[in-house]
């Protein structure tokens, strides 16, 4: 009954590796600030990079070491920054208002004209490679959903009319969709902004815009005359309303013959 030998061999192997591992655990112990672990757990963990750091762990290290402000995580917002303050023993910081993406284009499929029928990869960047996209308007939304794909919180859906729709609750204001849109059509606006916005991005001359889209802004300047607070300015045939000056009186909305100016109602076209 030879039991001793296997017992010794296996026991010996267990001993050798047990010893090696425990020796390595001491010798190569890495002093880690366990607060980084706790803060990292508090952060949403979507590793979206909105704070500009490689994932939540990267941001957590910087927050604990104090290099970046406690509310650096826009996605987490006030809730997260307050909890981190408790952990790090700092006084809570007034978080600035949350921002919401807004689509500055109303070029739905029925009002815009296509140059050709595009059957390539369903991605705006890819579509742009074919002579500047399949839409006659060089600045309009192509509706292929790069922004939808980019959103780590699935807060963006592509409407049937070919324009992205923002889901208010899910959106954390991280701004990734704004950067993802190759034509810069999505811009972050304050949640509680109630003024007017020119929902167009076209810098073409009036004639080209009229041929490309039924609702595009032609730069006719009617809104400038109508606006009591001089909040409107027109550059490259495109009207722009300065959110600071505009008090949402809506004069420009009636004056606009193209009906492209809207008050800050969510784009529920």
């Amino acid at each position: 009954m030879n039991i001793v030998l296997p017992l010794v061999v296996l026991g010996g192997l267990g001993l050798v590796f047990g010893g090696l591992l425990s020796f390595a655990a001491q010798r190569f112990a890495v002093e880690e600030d366990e607060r980084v672990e706790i803060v990292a757990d508090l952060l949403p963990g979507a590793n979206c990079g909105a704070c500009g750091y490689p994932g939540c762990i990267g941001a957590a290290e910087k927050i604990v070491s104090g290099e970046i402000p406690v509310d650096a995580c826009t996605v987490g917002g006030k809730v997260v920054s307050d909890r981190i303050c408790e952990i790090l023993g700092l006084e809570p910081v007034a978080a600035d208002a949350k921002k919401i993406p807004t689509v500055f284009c109303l070029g739905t499929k029925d009002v815009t004209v296509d140059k050709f029928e595009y059957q390539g990869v369903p991605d705006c960047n890819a579509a742009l490679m074919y002579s500047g996209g399949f839409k006659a308007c060089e600045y309009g939304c192509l509706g292929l959903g790069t922004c939808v794909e980019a959103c780590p919180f699935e807060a963006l859906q592509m409407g049937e009319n070919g324009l992205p729709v923002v889901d208010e609750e899910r959106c954390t204001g991280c701004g990734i969709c704004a950067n993802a849109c190759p034509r810069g059509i999505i811009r972050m606006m304050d949640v509680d902004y109630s003024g007017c916005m020119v929902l167009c991005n076209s810098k073409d001359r009036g004639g080209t815009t009229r041929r490309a889209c039924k609702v595009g802004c032609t730069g006719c300047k009617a809104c400038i005359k109508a606006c009591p607070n001089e909040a409107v300015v027109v550059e490259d045939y495109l009207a722009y309303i300065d959110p600071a000056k505009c008090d949402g009186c809506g004069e420009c909305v009636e004056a606009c013959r193209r009906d492209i100016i809207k008050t800050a109602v969510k784009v529920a076209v």
Partner: protein
Amino acid sequence: MSLLAIIFVAILADNIVFNQFLGICPYLGVSKRLETSLGMGIAVIFVMALSAIVTWVVYNFLLIPFDLGYLRTIAFILIIAGLVQLVETILKKTNPTLFRALGIYLPLITTNCAILGVAILNVQAEHNIIETIVYAIAVAIGFTIALIIMAGIRERLELADLSSHLRGAAVSLVTAGILSLAFMGFKGIMTL
């Protein structure tokens, strides 16, 4: 058998993923992006070579002389698990950046059947120490090549408009099937 034949067969003719079905779980899991695949590949090459040497030494100088062949499985897996954990702790201290890049794969490697598979195949084929090392490194390179090819394809598959049910593991398995068909082409050229 010449070393060249071993290398050729291990990488192309009898690729560990496409022909021997070993290491599929990490293969499906990691081949989503190119850099992660490369990271995993290097980690596998390093651990596979190291564990092949240690397992060969233990088998031939500890198990065979005492006629303990039946302890082979448990001894090998203990060595592999111990080695991986050792590499993980040492790497964490000496080179944190490399650790962060490879770190998450190291525990994954312990359950990677390819490493234990290679150790057992080496023993079954009665390779000497040189052949063991060459075979282990060649198989690991074959694994990395398979991983990189798959990662390249899967990055493009992300953009393909595919029904939501087939996305992910299903389409990667079918792609792997087609790649395995292609790799079968190398079979007749050279044999062990």
